[in-house]
């Protein structure tokens, strides 16, 4: 007997015992659909996280220096932070061999800004002109800050997309005068939107002004809240971080045992951590799904075994009609394989549908993790055949004479 014969009979048996077949499929369906959804959502989340970090940072080949020995998480609150990073530190760093660019940042959050009767409370970032290049800003209208703006302590401002919309609506913002904490600034440009950051919050509720203007005319302080050091060789990030630390410790006159009074964080390292966290979670989900599939295999095993007992007469008739033991084993094996294949396909369809639903609800990109899907299908067929093997062997050993008696 050739293979199509087994599959033919297997298909008929699957249809003949519909309820039994459905029972056997359930766990496989759950396992495969779960695996599809979880791996695809995991993939999408990873992509989205990467995209959001990229939105916030623009580039990953940087080291970020903040004052204080605090944690690397979140923005340092100015009120709590030590006053340690100076413009001279920034100037010294920009001469260091590992640095391509050093961006000076002087920022504060929830600053009142207004235009005529519209009020908003954006974050105000005093930045050096190289900010736009390092972070990859593009302008929707007007121009970015220049070195002249900085030297002249000009009161000019660049609006983020949200700040522009909230203050000006549909009217033209260029050359209009807004007030930031009561100080008048002239709008010089508007940035293109960046979308959401890692927390999901908008990155466009911002106003940029020259860093020197911020220090001397707005916040009245002569230290920095952040320096972004763009590296010449991003591959040597760790070495650069060590050099940078030594350089700042020397400048700050810190003795051997004194703790750093600044914090250096590496976006690459943070990204790697986030991704590792994601993939650890992913592995856990994969393990759970594989367990579900194994449960599915055990259900197939149990139900097939019970089926062999219930179908002794059928086995006897087939043997009398010319089925060899191998043919009987082949048919039962094909049944188990077919059931898990159909279960796998149904699971895949549900999984793709579920992924689409989740991606709409969670606003994630619609991604299907194809290699995982192919692996899952192969696994489900393998499971069916593996767990169907013993029932199939048992079916082939049914004594036709006993089975046909009476």
């Amino acid at each position, binding site marked *: *007997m*050739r293979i*199509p*014969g087994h599959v*033919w*009979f297997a298909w*008929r048996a699957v249809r*003949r*015992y519909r309820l039994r077949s459905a029972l056997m499929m359930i766990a496989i369906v759950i396992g495969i659909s779960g695996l599809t959804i979880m791996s695809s959502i995991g993939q999408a989340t990873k992509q989205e996280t990467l995209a959001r970090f990229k939105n916030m940072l623009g580039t990953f080949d940087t080291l970020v220096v903040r004052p204080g020995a605090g944690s690397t998480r979140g923005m340092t609150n100015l009120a709590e932070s030590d006053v340690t990073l100076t413009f001279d530190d920034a100037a010294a760093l920009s001469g260091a061999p590992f640095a391509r660019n050093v961006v000076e940042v002087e920022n504060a959050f929830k600053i009142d800004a207004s235009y005529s009767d519209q009020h908003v409370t954006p974050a105000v970032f005093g930045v050096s002109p190289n900010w736009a290049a390092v972070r990859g800003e593009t302008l929707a209208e007007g121009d970015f800050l220049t070195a002249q703006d900085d030297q002249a302590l000009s009161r000019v401002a660049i609006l983020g997309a949200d700040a522009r919309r909230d203050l000006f609506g549909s009217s033209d913002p260029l050359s209009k005068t807004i007030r930031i904490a009561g100080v008048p600034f002239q709008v010089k440009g508007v940035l293109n939107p960046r979308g959401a950051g890692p927390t999901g919050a908008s990155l466009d509720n911002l106003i940029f002004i020259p860093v020197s203007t911020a220090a001397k005319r707005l916040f009245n302080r002569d230290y920095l809240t952040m320096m972004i050091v763009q590296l010449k060789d991003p591959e040597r990030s760790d070495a650069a971080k060590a050099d940078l630390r030594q350089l700042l410790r020397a400048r700050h006159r810190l003795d051997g045992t004194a703790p750093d009074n600044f914090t250096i964080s590496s976006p690459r390292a943070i990204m790697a951590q986030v991704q590792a966290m994601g993939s650890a979670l992913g592995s856990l989900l994969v393990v759970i799904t594989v367990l579900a599939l194994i449960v599915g295999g055990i259900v197939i095993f149990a139900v097939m075994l019970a089926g062999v007992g219930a179908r002794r*007469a*059928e086995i*006897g*008739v*087939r*043997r*009398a*009609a*010319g*089925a*060899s*033991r*191998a*043919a009987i084993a082949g048919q039962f094996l094909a049944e188990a394989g077919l059931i898990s294949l159909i279960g796998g396909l149904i699971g895949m369809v549900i999984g793709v549908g579920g992924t689409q639903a989740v991606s709409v609800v969670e606003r994630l990109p619609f991604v299907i993790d194809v290699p995982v899907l192919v692996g899952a299908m192969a696994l489900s067929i393998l499971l069916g055949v593996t767990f169907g093997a013993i029932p199939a062997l048992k079916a082939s050993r049914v004594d*036709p*004479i006993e089975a*046909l*008696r*009476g």
Partner: protein
Amino acid sequence: MIRLQHIAKEYRRGEEHVTAIRDADFAVQAGEFVVIRGRSGSGKSTLLNIIGCLDQASRGKYLLDDLEVNGMSDASLSQIRALKIGFIFQSFHLLPRTSAVENVELPMVYAGRAPDRAAALTALRRVGLADRADHYPSQLSGGEQQRVAVARALINDPALILADEPTGNLDQAAGEAVMELLQRLNQEGRTIVLVTHDDVIAAYAGRTLSIEDGVVTEGRAS
């Protein structure tokens, strides 16, 4: 066609040694209709299973179409059953929840053919059940079920039909219809060996053997 030489069959049932067939030594020519009579427990079913290559003799020699069957592999015996032998059972043994025509198609696959609905319908027409092709066994009477079983036994055009008490579960009219069907198949040239405990059935046969305590004798035993 069939030649049994001093066939004996013993098997164990638990602790107990059972001798099902002591001595069977006879031949059946192609085209014969042979009825083997015997009471229940006389070993007649075991004998039929050996002739049908479902069971193997413990001793003796069995030739089917001059081919020595003893000691053949499971695959070879299965091939012989598929191509040369059609079985009919007392309790019909149709597959449940499977239409008459699909039941008839079943043996075709084991003969190496693709299931052929047209051929199965032709076989059903020959047993007078063309209009019942899509009925399930549960929708058929006992006589109709047995005629479907006959069509199934015929589908691979075997030379030998083996019937084990084929009328045992049927009323008289249905039993007669099945026997007339078997008689017609015999007239077409098929060899038929039928075992029964029923004396009336013997009337349809061209030749009668008797089996008692595992010993086969020619003619009607007392």
